[in-house]
């Protein structure tokens, strides 16, 4: 059975406004690092949102958690980052003891480079060596959460042809209990920015590896950002899910035989009072899609 999920964001206003939405879903997705703070001596401790998210789950029994981070950095091999990764995994282990994550996913790319936390997943060379690095990081994660995955990210530049990414992902998720998180807005965004057909990408992807699908929206960059005046679509999770993404979902979900969850994502700071009703309608629409799969 495919479950329906929603993101929990570390913001009081977001959680309050989305209260009815939280009651309408089967699971919650959290970015573990948003529930931490770092002490001056580098220790990672839980912040108030860890307890808050746990309290939400206690109030709504039967829901489960999945973890979706951005900071572990699957594309990092640097020894300068090794101590940070160790601390990260130790902290994830404590979170896993609390939340019992069904699976843990992070983004394709490097959000830490040679010890420098860039925090935005940046693209990797699509080589056998980089695929080995990502597999090694996923194996690190599996020492804590046995079932793991990687999400197709938005990259604003690439080190290879856009359609090569699907084959690269296949190499990355070849192992047991290693999955794909297919973010349809990311795929749509990449197709807009790089000018390819989403179906050409999907044809090269092993959809039997997809464990979770993300549905979200985004926005266009400001034309003034670039001297060229060019506008690029952004993976900003701050707006309604576009029709193109809904159409993609209708086409793709039935082709993912091992799909376990469909998550509606929205960033904190982007849900005003007037956004609540349309967002709830999106969650209901996602529910209808999931029910069609039964």
């Amino acid at each position, binding site marked *: 059975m495919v479950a329906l999920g929603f993101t929990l964001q570390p913001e009081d206003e977001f959680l309050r406004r989305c209260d009815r939405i939280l009651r309408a879903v089967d699971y919650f997705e959290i970015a573990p690092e948003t529930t931490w703070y770092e002490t001056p001596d580098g220790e990672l401790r839980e912040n108030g949102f860890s307890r808050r998210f746990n309290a939400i789950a206690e109030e709504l029994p039967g829901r489960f958690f999945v973890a979706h981070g951005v900071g572990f950095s699957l594309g990092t*091999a640097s020894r300068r980052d090794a101590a940070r990764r160790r601390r990260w995994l130790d902290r994830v282990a404590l979170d896993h003891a609390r939340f019992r994550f069904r699976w843990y996913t992070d983004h394709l790319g490097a959000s*830490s480079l*040679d010890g420098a936390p860039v925090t935005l997943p940046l693209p990797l060379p699509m080589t056998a*060596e980089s695929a080995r690095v990502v597999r090694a990081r996923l194996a690190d994660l599996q020492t804590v959460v046995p079932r793991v995955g990687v999400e197709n990210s938005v990259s604003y530049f*690439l080190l290879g042809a856009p359609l090569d990414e699907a084959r690269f992902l296949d190499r990355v998720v070849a192992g047991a209990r290693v999955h794909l998180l297919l973010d349809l807005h990311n795929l749509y965004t990449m197709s807009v920015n790089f000018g390819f057909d989403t179906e050409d990408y999907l044809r090269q992807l092993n959809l039997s590896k997809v464990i979770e699908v993300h549905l979200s929206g985004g926005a266009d960059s400001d034309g003034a950002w670039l001297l060229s005046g060019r506008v690029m679509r952004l993976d900003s999770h701050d707006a309604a899910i576009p029709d193109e993404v809904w159409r993609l979902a209708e086409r793709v979900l039935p082709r993912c035989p091992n799909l376990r969850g469909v998550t509606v994502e929205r960033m904190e700071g982007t849900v005003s009072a007037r956004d609540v009703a349309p967002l709830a309608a999106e969650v209901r629409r996602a529910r209808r899609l999931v029910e069609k799969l039964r």
Partner: protein
Amino acid sequence: MTSHARYERLLAKAIAAPDPVAALRAAARARSTPPSLRKALARADPDGIRIAALLVARLRFERVLRGSAEASDWFARDPAAFTESFRRYHHEVPLQDFFPAAEARRFSTWSRL
């Protein structure tokens, strides 16, 4: 050093450089860069590199504001001066902090120098 490690190092430097496209193009010409990586870097979309660099800077900017009420007050009081100060900080101080409090402490220390 492996090709991947070399890539991490050169991208870490380039992405926070005042001109990230020029920095990556220079890396693409360097003899120490493996040929396949040189080719890939030379073909990377310059607008995409600039947008990625802007977003990296924006995320850091947000960490400073989230991590310090003092910085947030300064930005509210004089956004132009704060932004200019942050711009210099971003180019001068290597990225080292993932969490807002540490980033804000580093910015605060730097801005009082």
